[in-house]
Every structure is written in structure tokens, then in C-alpha cells.
């Protein structure tokens, strides 16, 4: 498979936009990805041709919609090399997935149990566990990060013990782009019979993960991070865990029998898919995976690595610029500050040049507190960005700094 950047860019209609008369340069991919025509068209195709509620209807388009929805589940299963399709739960995204699991463990843990959260987590993989811990008393321990933004594995070894029941780590940090040693974290956790939930939201756009080989107990991702629409994601859970956890939301679809005396619940995956699902979203999620696999993740990975290298070298030419989280194992994310200038000012002026970056705490206040900063400017690159765009960033950044000094 060859990597034709021009062909790829022509797949994304939004890249043709102008902002303030300048070419639109989108460097906020960690927040959300842009969508290729084929994904956009799959959604309108659904609503134009076979929109229907699924699983219950006896008519033709209900069957077509049901098949398309379950085919999408099969695509997700195959992409992640999951053994059983019923171990893939469609959710509205990573946050929903994590809350589902946290809710499930609420009555399974007590104040004698401990849970471990990494210091690199996004709030979505911190707050649900704090809320759970307030209800069941489970003690929270933290894996701290070092000056490079990497997890301190020595401390992880120290805090892991027989009382540890759950460990939560992101596959890739949204704020810094660091890829965590999750295979090791999982192996060590399993030695003390602790289960591990990996937040894969920031990983799946950049590389493929074999979930059987990884052996995580839970893995979450959101479609909108990998060229899919918003409002759909997936929770992978090992069958034994998904059978153990109680349902999260009650309603239609997730039941077996309902009487006012007693209701029994559906089998997996439907037990966790109450109500009418985001059918078009699931279908588009599958199309997004097809699109990315069509380009090839080896190609995506190689190209993004070269962009990261180029961008890092260029940014290092900017005086007084500091990059946070300089690790050899990173996705194409660069979080930085310029001494004496607030990140918000940089972001606001880069926007005027047509360049979209993210500024602030990136929903990861613990990381910002660790570095003693109020926020950063985050450049997050994707396989449809170019070196020419990075040159524009460099030039615009120089002008921005000159205006603010």
C-alpha cells in the first residue's frame, strides 16, 4: 500500500476551508479527528436509505439496519482481534464506557480494597473512580510521573499488593502523547489478581492493538478520535467481567423478560446497550476502521512518526520553548510552552493565522499540577497533516511571539 498524502487530504472536505483568509491547518486531532467523505456519506446513506430501529422489527429495512449495526460490531471485533463479538459493547464513547465499568464495580468493592490510577489520566479515567470510591470506600493510590512525564514503574511495583483490585491507565496520554508500558502494567496487575482497564481513546487513531495479545480486562475507545462520528465508542470487556457487572442503564433492549414483579436481563452485549442505539454512528465507526485499515496502520504510524520528528525539530528552533513529555515512545503530540507567554495568547493568535491548536489543561489537571504549570499549547498531528503545515506553524509561531513580546 502506498501512502499518497494528496489523495488522502482530498478525502477530507473540511481541509479545504479558509480561516481568516488563510488555509485551515488543523492541529487539534487529539481533541477530535476530521472525517473523510466515506464516513460522512455512510451516515447520510443510512438516513436516506435504511434508517430503522433495530433488533425488533420484522420489516425489510429493520433487518438491513440490524445487519449493518451488527456488521459494524463484527468489524470492531476483527479490528481489535477480540475473541467474541459479545465482548464488544457499543457505548457513546470512552467516558460512557468508563462510567459503565465504575458503576459496575460499585457494589463489588469495599473499603478493604484498593484501586490504582495513573498520574497521566484524563479526568474521564479519574472522576468516575473517585465517585465510585466515595460510595464503596475503596482506597485510591496513584502512579506518579517523572520529569519526562513517564509513569514511575518502581512506585507502581510498591503500591501494587494483594488488596489491589483495579488498575487504570491510558494507552496514550492525551496531554503529552506518551505511550505507556501497559503490557507490563497488565502482567504485574494480574499477578496480584487485579483487573486492568485501559483507556485507549488516544491510541486507536495511531496504531492497532490486539486485545487478546494485550490481555487487558477492559479497553475503551471513542470513534470520533479515529475519523468516526461523535456519540459512539466501544467498551471491550472480557466475558467473565461483563457477566459479573450489573447493567448500567435499564430500559428496552437490555431485558429478557419484564413483569412488575421481576425483570430479567438480556445476554451480552445487549445487557449493556439499553434503548435505541446510535445506529448510524456504529455503522460509520465501522466505515472509519475500514478507511484507516485501507491506508494501513503501518503507513499511518510511519508517516506520523516522521511528522512528529520534523515538528519537534522545528519547534526546538523557537527560543524559550519548552516541550513537556519528551519520551522516545510517543504518538504525534507535542505539548509546549513559551517562557513568559500564556498558552491562551498563543492559541488565540495561532487561530488568527488559521492554525487550530488546543490550549489549557487538556482535562488533565494532575499532569499540569505535576509540572507546576497552568496549561500548555498542544499540537496533535494526524496522517492528513503535512510538513508544509508544520512550516506554517513555525512561521506563525514566530510572528505570534513577536506580537506578544
Amino acid at each position, binding site marked *: 500500500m502506498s501512502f499518497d498524502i494528496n489523495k488522502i487530504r482530498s478525502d477530507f472536505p473540511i481541509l479545504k476551508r479558509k480561516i*481568516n483568509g488563510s488555509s485551515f491547518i488543523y492541529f487539534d486531532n487529539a481533541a477530535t479527528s476530521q472525517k473523510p467523505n466515506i464516513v460522512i456519506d455512510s451516515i447520510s446513506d443510512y438516513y436516506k436509505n435504511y434508517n430503522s430501529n433495530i433488533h425488533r422489527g420484522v420489516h425489510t429495512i429493520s433487518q438491513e439496519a440490524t445487519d449493518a449495526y451488527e456488521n459494524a460490531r463484527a468489524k470492531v471485533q476483527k479490528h481489535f482481534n477480540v475473541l467474541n463479538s459479545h465482548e464488544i459493547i457499543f457505548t457513546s464513547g470512552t467516558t460512557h464506557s468508563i462510567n459503565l465499568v465504575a458503576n459496575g464495580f460499585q457494589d463489588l468493592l469495599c473499603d478493604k480494597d484498593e484501586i490504582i490510577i495513573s498520574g497521566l489520566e484524563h479526568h474521564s479515567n479519574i472522576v468516575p473512580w473517585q465517585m465510585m470510591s466515595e460510595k464503596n470506600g475503596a482506597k485510591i493510590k496513584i502512579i506518579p510521573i517523572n520529569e519526562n512525564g513517564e509513569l514511575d514503574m518502581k512506585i507502581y511495583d510498591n503500591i501494587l499488593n494483594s488488596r489491589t483490585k483495579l488498575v487504570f491507565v491510558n494507552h496514550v496520554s492525551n496531554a503529552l502523547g506518551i505511550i505507556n508500558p501497559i503490557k507490563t502494567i497488565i502482567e504485574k496487575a494480574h499477578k496480584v489478581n487485579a483487573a486492568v482497564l485501559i483507556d485507549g481513546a488516544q491510541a486507536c487513531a495511531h496504531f492497532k492493538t490486539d486485545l487478546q495479545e494485550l490481555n487487558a480486562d477492559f479497553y475503551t475507545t471513542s470513534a470520533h478520535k479515529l475519523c468516526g462520528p461523535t456519540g459512539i465508542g466501544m467498551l471491550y470487556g472480557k466475558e467473565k467481567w461483563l457477566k459479573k457487572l450489573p447493567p448500567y442503564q435499564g430500559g428496552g433492549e437490555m431485558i429478557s423478560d419484564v413483569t412488575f414483579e421481576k425483570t430479567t436481563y438480556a445476554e451480552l452485549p445487549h445487557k449493556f446497550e439499553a434503548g435505541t442505539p446510535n445506529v448510524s454512528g456504529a455503522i460509520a465507526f465501522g466505515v472509519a476502521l475500514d478507511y484507516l485499515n485501507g491506508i494501513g496502520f503501518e503507513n499511518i504510524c510511519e508517516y506520523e512518526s516522521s511528522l512528529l520528528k520534523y515538528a519537534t525539530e522545528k519547534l526546538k528552533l523557537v527560543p524559550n520553548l519548552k516541550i513537556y513529555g519528551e519520551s522516545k515512545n510517543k504518538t504525534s503530540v507535542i505539548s509546549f510552552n513559551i517562557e513568559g*507567554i*500564556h*498558552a*491562551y*495568547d498563543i*492559541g*488565540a*493568535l495561532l487561530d*488568527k493565522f488559521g492554525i487550530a491548536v488546543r*490550549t*489549557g489543561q487538556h482535562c488533565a489537571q494532575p499532569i499540569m499540577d505535576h509540572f507546576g504549570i*497552568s*496549561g500548555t499549547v498542544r499540537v496533535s498531528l494526524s496522517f492528513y497533516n503535512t510538513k508544509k503545515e508544520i512550516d506554517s506553524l513555525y512561521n506563525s509561531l514566530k510572528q505570534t511571539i513577536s*506580537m*506578544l513580546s
Partner: protein
Amino acid sequence: MKIKEIQDEIVEEFSHFEDWKEKYEYLIELGNSIELIDKQNKIDSNLIKGCQSKLWLYAELQNDKIIYTADSEAIITKGIAAILLRVFSNQTAKDILNSDIKYIEAIGLKEHLSPTRANGLVSMIRQIKYYALALNTN
């Protein structure tokens, strides 16, 4: 000068800018020359909520006029605060409460009025009005 007169003056000044760079250079200049808040008032309780950079606002009554002072970690935010203070500071509570902020749109800074968490401008305007309500001697 009355609030409406100052607003018209600002709109006239901004109409001379040829492009966004000139406008923002002016905004940055304003930010660097804003009436800064007293150190003792640069405290957490005077922080405007909903702002990505810290933004402090303080008000005190002098005779029947409200004097506002402010500061921010971000220069552009300070610049926008300066434009607000130029209009609303040293005015009576009644005049402040009766005024509008259409001039912000007229000078092409409408994007700063959008309710995102980034700039707290909407919150600052609200706080200016709250102070006026609280310090209204009528």
C-alpha cells in the same frame, strides 16, 4: 464621558484597522497598559470563573461612581478587559446596568463573547453588572 460616547469612540478607533494583526497588536498594547488591580485584591475570591487564564476583577465605589480594576495572566484577555473597563469604569451603577455590549460585536471581537470556557469574557461582563447591582446606591 457617557458610556455610549465611549463605546462609539472605541468603534471609531477600531474601524481604522486594516487587518486582524493591527487590531490584535492594539489589543495587546491595551492589555499592557490596563489599570491594574491592587496586589491585595489579586486574590482567589476576585477570580472570574470560566476562564482558561486567571482573570481578576475588582470594583469599588468612589462617590457615586464604580471604579473597576483587573488583571490577567493572558495579554489578550487583559486587552479585552481593558476595553470593557474603559467603557464601564468610572460610571454610575445605574448607567452600567442600563448599557449594552453591542460595541464588542461592532469592533469585530464577537468571537470572544462565545460561551466557551476559554476566555471568561462573558463571565467578566456578568460580574461587572453584578458589582453594579451590588454597589447601586439608588
